[in-house]
């Protein structure tokens, strides 16, 4: 006879059986596909959110693409990629908390942080916990011995700046140069190294002390005295993508007719919306950003990114690389999956085809000239010129 007690008992047994079967299914699936966790610690909120968001979304797009095609084979195992993210809000204290979280999760490879002070702050945590991290920050001390766990994820301004100024001096007749920077550690250090590079080239520096608060919305008062000095080139040192169009527009509206450049990556859509035709001729640095050099895989990446997030961010032309380097290096030496010492060994000799560029370009670690050891991703130094809503290649350089 079926009573309430037996019904409840049957339901409980059924639930337990279902859970057990589900758990069994999950564990067998896990046996089929292991998971490789890659971390991200960087800024995805506030005025600089674009920097970190383009990082995260690049990683998520690439990871989804890899997972969709069955995962990545490293050694004898196939792994699904799981991106673990942490928003440090551009705060070094939170960056430390983020890196500690990555350590607790047993993650050995982390992309970020995006700014100098955050990257410097996480160094002790990364080194103590066997984490290799890929900052988008330029302090040389992070990449020079005795430091060994940080790998610069992009071209530094002290690498691209001299090349840009030299090109503009030789090809556009630039003689007088002015610098303006936000009053924060990254832009100020980028300005200082830019000033040094300009001096080394014999350029006349007409302004180098002008700064602004990063949350400035109207740059006309900032630029009024600089424009009056009539420089041939106005350098927006370390400018955030949110501020670049506002600075360009203010300078042009004040009648400035010279060149404007920066050494940070920018987004064409943001420039188009914020500065319109005033942005034509603006020079910045990107990765595999222009049709002349982008491979079919890069185009596919852009399409997938756009489909996934609604809109592409041109900063991802550079930020697409970090995850690719991590995966390819692990493929080259599977022992590195839980041992960063093995990863470091592999970096010295690593070479793999660059899927995002046309031709026979290679992925490899560089940085010997700047840091004395290979602690930088070899990303193409594509110097772009903005023109009517898109970037055009001005010249392509490289770092050794």
């Amino acid at each position, binding site marked *: 006879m079926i009573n309430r007690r037996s019904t409840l008992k049957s339901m409980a047994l059924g639930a337990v059986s279902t859970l057990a079967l589900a758990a069994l299914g999950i564990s067998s699936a896990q046996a089929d596909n292991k998971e490789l966790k890659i971390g991200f610690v960087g800024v995805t*909120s*506030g005025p600089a959110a*674009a920097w970190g968001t383009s990082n995260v979304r690049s990683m998520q797009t690439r990871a989804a693409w890899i997972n969709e095609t069955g995962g990545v084979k490293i050694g004898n195992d196939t792994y699904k990629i799981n991106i673990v993210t942490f928003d440090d809000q551009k705060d070094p204290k939170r960056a430390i908390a983020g890196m500690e979280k990555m350590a607790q999760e047993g993650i050995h490879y982390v992309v970020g942080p995006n700014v100098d002070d955050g990257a410097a702050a996480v160094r002790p945590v990364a080194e103590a916990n066997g984490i290799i991290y890929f900052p988008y920050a330029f302090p040389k001390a992070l990449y020079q011995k005795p430091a060994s766990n940080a790998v610069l994820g992009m071209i530094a301004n002290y690498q691209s700046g001299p090349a840009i100024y030299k090109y503009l001096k030789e090809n556009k007749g630039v003689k007088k140069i002015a610098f303006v920077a936000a009053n924060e550690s990254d832009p100020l250090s980028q300005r200082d190294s830019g000033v040094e590079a300009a001096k080394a080239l014999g350029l006349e520096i007409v302004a180098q002390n002008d700064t602004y608060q990063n949350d400035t919305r109207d740059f006309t008062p900032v630029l009024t*005295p*600089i424009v009056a000095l009539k420089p041939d080139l106005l350098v927006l040192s370390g400018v955030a993508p*949110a501020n670049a169009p506002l600075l360009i527009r203010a300078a042009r509206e004040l009648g400035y007719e010279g060149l404007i450049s920066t050494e940070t990556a920018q987004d064409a859509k943001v420039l188009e919306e914020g500065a319109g035709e005033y942005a034509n001729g603006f020079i910045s640095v990107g990765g595999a950003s222009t049709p002349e050099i982008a491979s079919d895989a890069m185009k596919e990446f852009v399409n997938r990114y756009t489909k996934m997030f609604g809109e592409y961010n041109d900063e991802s032309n550079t930020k697409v690389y970090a995850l690719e380097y991590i995966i390819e290096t692990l493929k080259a030496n599977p022992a590195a999956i839980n041992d960063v010492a093995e990863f470091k060994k592999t970096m010295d000799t690593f070479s793999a085809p660059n899927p995002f560029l046309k031709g026979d370009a290679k992925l490899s670690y560089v940085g010997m000239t700047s840091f004395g050891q290979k602690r930088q991703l070899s990303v193409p130094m594509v110097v772009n010129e903005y023109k009517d809503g898109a970037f055009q290649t001005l010249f392509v350089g490289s770092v050794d």
Partner: protein
Amino acid sequence: MEQVIANGLYLGAQYALIALGLTLIFALMNVLNFAHGQMYVLGGFITYTVYGQLGLPFVVALLASGITLAVIGALMEKFLFRTVIRRSHREESTMLLAAATAFFFDAVILLLFGEKQRGVPKIVKGVFNDAGIIMPYDRMVVGALAIVFIAAFVLYMQYSRVGRAMRALAQDRVAAQLMGVRVDRYSMIGFALGAMLAGVVGGLLVTITGVNSGIGGPISIKAFLMVMIGGAGVVGGAIAGGFILGMMESVGLTALREYGDVTYLVIFAALMVFLSIRPNGLMGKPWG
């Protein structure tokens, strides 16, 4: 020098308009609305969507920003601030609530509109360049509109029935209630009006400075600065504070440029000295 003064006047007009909504809400309800900057940002994004993306006329976009924010403000007052003010005896409760709404708006705006800086086509093209002054026409239009809005707001508060009721409320809440003023109703209207002003100025300025999801906090801080200079809860004070801050910024960025980013250092130092002498600001007394 003419250019510096022109820059200062333009900045002052836009700052004054930003500060008005904040001071109105403070005057009526003694609430420091930390979400004022986020309301400005939301107004900017609504104008961006309606004017920049959908291609509708700018006036329609501005109306959409104002009306949406007015509705949001009214709902916030009715369901959040009114409840907290009624139940809590501690003034910090409303401050905490305002801070929480600011964080909430930040997150929602980031989710809805993304992380990128956004801008819209200029509403008027061309640049005025004469007598040593360079000023784009769209800034002149926005500056003029800001002054018109400020004048309309002051006149509305001075002569309309609703304005008089709100001024009475600001002067003495209990006395106003005893005289038959419907406190709840006019508090809600006041909050809606303050939020609407934030939305309208956000929509207006998106044509000049664009908008991005992370600027709400800094906008609020600047608005508080203006209100502190002029005197909290005083309309004339907010206007004066806006123009003083705009002029100090413009002059400082030119005169002190050789010393790096010391303009705001000087402004904050001056503010500290000023507040120690006049803790209630320039016009520091309740409205009226």
